[in-house]
C-alpha cells in the first residue's frame, strides 16, 4: 500500500479503485470486442492459475507460479503487433495467451511430457513459443533484458518498425543485467519497452530493501529515457501507457521504461510460504484493488458484461483445462535419446557416444512418472 498512497500523484490511472473511469482520464481506444477478449483472457489466467496450483498440490506437476492480482500487467502486450517480440519474465501468463500460445502447449509444458513443445527440457512455467515471437523463459532473472534490447536494435538495423517489449520484476531491477540493458537501450535509442512489474516482493524481500530510490520509474533518469509510473492493476492505464511507449519506439524516439505498480497477492511460487515473512493481512488491503474486479466494473459501466458472459467464460476455460489436463496426464515422458538433441544443431561424436551408452543402460523410471 505504502507506495500507492505516497505516490498517487505521479501514478497514471484510468480507473479508480472500484473500476469506474476517473474524470478526465485518457482512455485508450479499444474496440468492444477486444475489451471482452481481454476480460476473457484475464479470467483464463486466473482460472488457469487456480487449477494448475491445485494440480501442483496434488503432486501431478512439480512446480507452479501464480500471478493472482497481477493479471492486468500482462496485457501491456495488447500494444504490440504480431511481428513484435516479447521477452518475458516468468509471471506473465496472460501475455502468452494473448499472443497465441495455446492452453494445450501451456499445460503440456507444465507436465514436461512428450507433447511439451520444448521436449521436457525445462521446469514448469519456462515456456517458449517462436511462432508468436515469445522468447524462451529463463530462470536467472534479468538476462532477458539486454536480449530484448539487442533484438530491438537488430530490428532498427534491419530497417523495420518492429519493437521489443520485456518484463522484469522490481527485484530484478537490482541486477547488473537491468543496468547494462537500460544503458545500452538509451545509448542505442533501441525501439524497446522495458516494463518493471513492481509487485512489491522478491520472494521474501520487500521493495524497500531492493532500492533506496523513491520509485523504480525514477531509475530511467540515469539512462536518459522516460520512466512512467502506472497503476498496474488498471488494465486500461497499462494499455494506454504501453501504446504510448510502443508508438515512441516505432517512431524512432527510443526506449521507454514503465513501472507497473501491482502486488503479489500470494506466494512467490508453489515452493514458497509467505506467512513466514510477511503480514498475513497485507494482501487483503490489496485485493480491494483486484484488477479483474475493476475491469469487470468498467465493462459493466460500458454494458459489455453480464452474468451469462461471466459463466460462459468460466465454463469454457474450465472445460478446456479439464480436457487438456486429462490428455496431458495420459502422455508419456519424452524419449530418452531426445536428451542429446538441440545441444548443437548436429550431434557431435561425444554426445553420440554418450547417447549410445545411455541407451545401453537399463531404463530408469522417473520417480514422478506421469
Amino acid at each position: 500500500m505504502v507506495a500507492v498512497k505516497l505516490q498517487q500523484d505521479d501514478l497514471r490511472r484510468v480507473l479508480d479503485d472500484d473500476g469506474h473511469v476517473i474524470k478526465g482520464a485518457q482512455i485508450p481506444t479499444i474496440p468492444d470486442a477486444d475489451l471482452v477478449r481481454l476480460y476473457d483472457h484475464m479470467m483464463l489466467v486466473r482460472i488457469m492459475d487456480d487449477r494448475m496450483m491445485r494440480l501442483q498440490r496434488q503432486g501431478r506437476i512439480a512446480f507452479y507460479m501464480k500471478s493472482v492480482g497481477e493479471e492486468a500487467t500482462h496485457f501491456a502486450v495488447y500494444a504490440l503487433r504480431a511481428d513484435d517480440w516479447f521477452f518475458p519474465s516468468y509471471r506473465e501468463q496472460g501475455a502468452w495467451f494473448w499472443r497465441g500460445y495455446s492452453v494445450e502447449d501451456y499445460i503440456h509444458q507444465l507436465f514436461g511430457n512428450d507433447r511439451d513443445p520444448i521436449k521436457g527440457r525445462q521446469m514448469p512455467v519456462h515456456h517458449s513459443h517462436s511462432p508468436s515471437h515469445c522468447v524462451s523463459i529463463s530462470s536467472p532473472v534479468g538476462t532477458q533484458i539486454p536480449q530484448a534490447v539487442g533484438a530491438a536494435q537488430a530490428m532498427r538495423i534491419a530497417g523495420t518498425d518492429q519493437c521489443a517489449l520485456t518484463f522484469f520484476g522490481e527485484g530484478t531491477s537490482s541486477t547488473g543485467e537491468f543496468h547494462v540493458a537500460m544503458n545500452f537501450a538509451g545509448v542505442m535509442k533501441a525501439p524497446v519497452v522495458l516494463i518493471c512489474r513492481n509487485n512489491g516482493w522478491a520472494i521474501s524481500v520487500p521493495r524497500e530493501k531492493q532500492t533506496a530510490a523513491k520509485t523504480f520509474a525514477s531509475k530511467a533518469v540515469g539512462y536518459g529515457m522516460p520512466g512512467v509510473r502506472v497503476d498496474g492493476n488498471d488494465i486500461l492505464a497499462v494499455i494506454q501507457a504501453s501504446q504510448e511507449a510502443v508508438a515512441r519506439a516505432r517512431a524512432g524516439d527510443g526506449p521507454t521504461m514503465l513501472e507497473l505498480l501491482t502486488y503479489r497477492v500470494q506466494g512467490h511460487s508453489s515452493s514458497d510460504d509467505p506467512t513466514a515473512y510477511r503480514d498475513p493481512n497485507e494482501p487483503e488491503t490489496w485485493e480491494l484493488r483486484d484488477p479483474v474486479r475493476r475491469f469487470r466494473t468498467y465493462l459493466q459501466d460500458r454494458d459489455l458484461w453480464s452474468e451469462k458472459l461471466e459463466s460462459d467464460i468460466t465454463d469454457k476455460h474450465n472445460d478446456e483445462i479439464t480436457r487438456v489436463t486429462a490428455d496431458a496426464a495420459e502422455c508419456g515422458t519424452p524419449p530418452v535419446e531426445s536428451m542429446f538433441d538441440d545441444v548443437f544443431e548436429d550431434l557431435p561424436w561425444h554426445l553420440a557416444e554418450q547417447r549410445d551408452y545411455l541407451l545401453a543402460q537399463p531404463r530408469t523410471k522417473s520417480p514422478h512418472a506421469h
Partner: protein
Amino acid sequence: MPTMNIIQAVNSALRIEMAREPNLVVLGEDVGKFGGVFRATSGLHDEFGPERVIDTPLAEGGIIGTAIGMALYGMRPVPEIQFADFIFPAFDQIVNELAKFRYRSGGEYPCPVVIRTPYGGGIRGGHYHSQSPEALFIHTPGLKVVIPSNPVDAKGLLLSCLRQNDPVLFMEPKRIYRASRGDVSEDDYTIPLGVANVTRPGDQVTVIAYGAMMPIVTEAADKAADEGISCEVIDLRTLLPYDIDTLTASIQKTGRAVIVHEAPRTCGFGAELVATLCERAMEYLEAPILRVTGFDTPFPYSLEHEYMPNADRVLTAVRKTLEW
C-alpha cells in the same frame, strides 16, 4: 546426540561460529527474516540481528563484491548464493577478485570469504536449479572447494572453513539436504580440510565420489559386495586441495578405480583425478580409470532421472574395470 539433516547441521555450524566470532556476518537473498529458501540460516536473523544477517538486494555480484570488501576490512562474511546456478553473475568477483586478492597484493590483503551454495540435481529443478559447477572453481587458482555428503561432515567442515583464512566455495548437496540424516553433536567440532574419508575399505576397486553421489556409490558398493566384489569407497569432502595420498594409496592397493560425479563429463573434476592418478600410479593400474558422470548436455527436466548417475551405472563401471 540429536539427529540432524544437512540443513540443520549447516545452521548449527553457523550459529556456533556467529556466537564465537563477532565479525562473522551472513548475507544473501532471503537469508534474513525468511532464513533462506532452504532455511539454512533459519533463526539467525532473530538471534544475531539484521546487521549480521543481511537480506541483500537481488544481485549476486553485489553479494560477493560487498562480502570481499567486508573481508578486506577484517570481517568474516559468509555469503549465500541461493542456487549454484545463480553464482555466475558473481563469477568475475569470484575468479578475478576473491581468488586473486591475496596473491596480487603480495600477501597484503587476505580475503577469507566462505561462499555457501546448494548445488546439484535430483530435485526436478531443470537447467537452472540443478547444476554442479565445481570444476569451474577448482580450475581457478586461489579458491578452496569443499563439498560435504552428510550432516556430520557438513558441520565439521563448515566450521573448519570459517576458521581458516582463504576463500572457500562450500557447496551443499541439496538433493540430500533433508534426506541425509545423522547424529550430530550440538557442540563445537571441526573436520580438517584436505582429508578424504574412506567410508568403506575394500581391495578390488576404488570408487571415488563426493556430495550427493555418496549415497549412490554406497548403494553400488553394497550391490557389488553381493556379487563378491570388494570396493573401497572414498568420499573426497575437500575437492581442492584434495587428498592425493589417500587416493594414491587406495589405487596402489586396488589397481582399479571408478570416479563418479553428476557434473558434465567433459572437463569435469573426474578428468583431473584420472590424469593425476595415471601420472602417479600408472604402473599399478590393471584397467583404465572409468568415469560415471552427468552427460554433456544442459541439465534436462523430464529426463533428469536418466541424466543422473545411479548405482546401476556405477556397478556396471566397477564390473567393467574388473573384466578389462
